[in-house]
C-alpha cells in the first residue's frame, strides 16, 4: 500500500514544528512504500504529490485541539478562506480531484495538540509529551496499513480523546 506522508509547519515556531518532527521520525523509520513530504505550508502543488498514492497521512500541529492528538479520515473540501497562502489538507485533496480529475486516495490527519507557537521558541513541555504519544500511535499504525484498519483506529482515538476538525486545527 503506497503511502504519502505530509508533515508541515515551522520548527522555529515552537510547537508548530510538531508535524515536521513527527515526519522526520517516519522518514527515519524506513517503512516500505512510504514517501515523506515536508514543507512550511500545504500548497496547491502538493496535490501532485498525491498522484499514485493509495493512502495519505497528514501530520500537523493544532491549537485547542484534542490532546494528546486526534486522528481522523478527511475528505476533499474547498477552503472558504479569503487568503490561500496555505491550504488545509482537505483543500489539497480537492485541488487534486479537480486538477487531475481523479478521486483522491483515502486520507487521514494526525493532529498533535500544541500550546506555544512564537518565533524562536522550542517545543513546549506538553507538546514533547504528546509527540511521544503520537509517535507511539504511529508506530502501531504503520504496519497495519489499510483504510479499513485506519478507520477503526480513528474511531478508537475519537472515542478516547475526542474528534477534531480543520477549523480547530488552525
Amino acid at each position: 500500500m503506497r503511502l504519502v506522508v505530509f508533515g508541515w509547519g515551522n520548527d522555529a515556531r515552537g510547537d508548530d514544528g510538531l508535524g515536521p518532527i513527527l515526519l522526520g521520525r517516519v522518514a527515519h523509520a524506513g517503512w516500505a512504500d512510504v514517501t515523506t513530504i515536508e514543507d512550511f505550508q500545504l500548497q496547491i502543488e502538493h496535490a501532485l504529490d498525491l498522484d499514485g498514492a493509495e493512502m495519505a497521512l497528514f501530520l500537523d500541529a493544532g491549537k485547542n485541539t484534542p490532546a494528546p492528538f486526534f486522528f481522523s479520515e478527511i475528505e476533499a473540501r474547498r477552503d472558504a478562506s479569503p487568503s490561500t497562502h496555505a491550504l488545509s489538507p482537505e483543500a489539497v485533496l480537492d485541488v487534486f480531484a479537480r486538477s487531475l480529475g481523479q478521486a483522491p486516495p483515502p486520507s487521514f490527519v494526525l493532529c498533535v495538540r500544541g500550546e506555544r507557537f512564537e518565533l524562536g521558541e522550542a517545543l513546549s513541555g506538553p507538546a514533547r509529551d504528546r509527540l511521544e504519544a503520537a509517535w507511539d500511535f504511529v508506530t502501531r499504525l504503520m504496519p497495519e496499513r489499510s483504510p479499513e484498519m485506519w478507520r477503526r483506529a480513528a474511531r478508537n482515538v475519537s472515542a478516547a480523546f475526542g474528534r477534531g476538525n480543520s477549523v480547530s486545527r488552525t
Partner: protein
Amino acid sequence: MSNLETAESPHRLRRVAIEPVSRVEGHGKVTILLDQENRVHQVRLHIVEFRGFEIFIEGRPYWEVPIAVQRLCGICPVSHLLAATKAMDLIAGYGPLTPTAEKLRRLLHYGQIVQSHALHFFHLASPDLLLGFESEVAKRNIMGVAAAFPDLARQGVLTRKFGQEVIRHVAGKRIHGTGVIPGGVNKALSVEDRDSMRGGIDQIVEWSKAAVDLVVELHQTSPEFYKVFGEARANMMALVNSHGAPDYYHGGLRARDADGKPIFDHVDTTTYQSLLQEDVKNWTYMKFPHIRALGAEKGWYRVGPLARVQLCDFMPTPLAEAERKKFVAAGGGKPLHGALMYHWARMVEMLHAAELARELLDDADIVGTDLMADKGSRREEAVGVIEAPRGTLFHHYRVDENDLVTYCNLIVSTTNNNQAMNEAIRAVASRFLSGHEVTEGLLNHIEIAIRAYDPCLSCATHALGQMPLEVDLVDADGALVSRLRKG
C-alpha cells in the same frame, strides 16, 4: 494621503472589524468606522508586523543567517535567503560573484517569482476576476475557477510546481535550502537537472503568455472599473539596472511620483536609510516607510509588480516587453494606480521571469563549476536588497568582532506597501461601502483590494496564511450588533 485615516469624532461612530483568526500572532485586520447613515469616516488596515524577526536574528553567527531567515516566512523564504546572503557576501569579505554563481542565484529568484505569481493569480486572484465580485463565496476560490476554467486550475498547479522544482534544483531542497551561501553557491547545477528544467520551461512561458492574455481580456470587459477600483495615486519605487530595465536581483533604486516624474534614480541601495524613513503609528505594529525628502504626507510609495512594470524603461525579453507596452498604453501616458492593475502587471512579470529563466537555462555558464568568489577583508556592516515577488526587500546587518549579528533591520515588501494598501482600501470603502448597508459582498471588495497587493502576513507557519474572517458590527457603546464569520 486621504482624510480617512483618522475620524474626527470616533466615539459617535459604529465600528466594523474584519479580523482573521489564526493560531499564531501576527495577522492583519481592517477596521471601518461608520456613522448612522453608514457613511465611512475612518478605514485602517492594521498589520501585526513580523514581531521578533530582528530579535530572532540578532546574536547569531553571520553565516547562520541565510539559513535562519528562511524560517521567518513560509511564503517567501527564497526572498529572505537571497537578500540576507547578498548582505553576508559583503560581511564575509567576498568580492563579485562568479558568473555561474550569480546566474544560479538569479535562476533561483526567477523560479520563485514564477511560482509566487502563479499561485497568486491562479489560486488567489483569478476567482475574483473570473467570476465577478458579487459571486457567492464558494465560487470565489480556486474551485470556482476550476469549475469554469478547469485547464486554468491545472496550469496554475503545474506552473507553481515548476517554480518549486527550480528552487529545489538550485537551493538543494524545496525548503531549508543550503545551496546559496556567502560568496556564491555550494553546488553546481547538473546537466541532468538543467535539462529537466529546460524541457519544461517552454510550456511555462506559453502558459504565462496565456495568463497575460486572460488578464487583458478581463480588463477589456470594463477598463474604467479596473482603472479606478482601489485607486491610490502613489509614488512608486523599484530596483532597475544601469540600462533602465527591471532588475529583480540587484540594481539601483528608482522612484517616480504619481504622475511619473522622477524623484530619484540609480541610487545605491546601501544608502537606503538616508533615502527612506520608517515612521510608526499608534494603531498598528507595522511601520510606515516614506521617502525622507518628501515627508510622511507626500512621501509614501508603492512597490511590487505595479511599480516595477511602470518604472522600468523596457523589459529585456521579447514577449514580456510587448505585453509591458500594452500595459503602459492602457494608462494613456499616465501611470496606473488601480489595485486591480496589479494582476495585469503581475502576469507580465511572470512572463518576464519565465523568459529570463529560459535564457539562463540556455546559457552554458549555468552548469559551470566556478562557484565561489574571491575573499578579501571582512566587513562589519552590509545591506542586501532584492526585488521580491511582492516588492523591494531590504536586509541590513551589523556584525561584531566575534562574528555575531548585533543589528538587523528588515523592511519587507508588505511594509513598503503599508500606506498604499491603506489608501487602496479607503478608496474602495469610499466608493462602495459609504452610504450602504454593510454586506458580505461589499466587505469582499475590501478583501479584493488587499489581495491585489498580495501582502505576506505569514511568519513561516502554515496556519497563518489561512485567514478566516470575523466581521463584527459594534454600536457606539461597544455593543455587538451583528457578526459575520467566514472561513
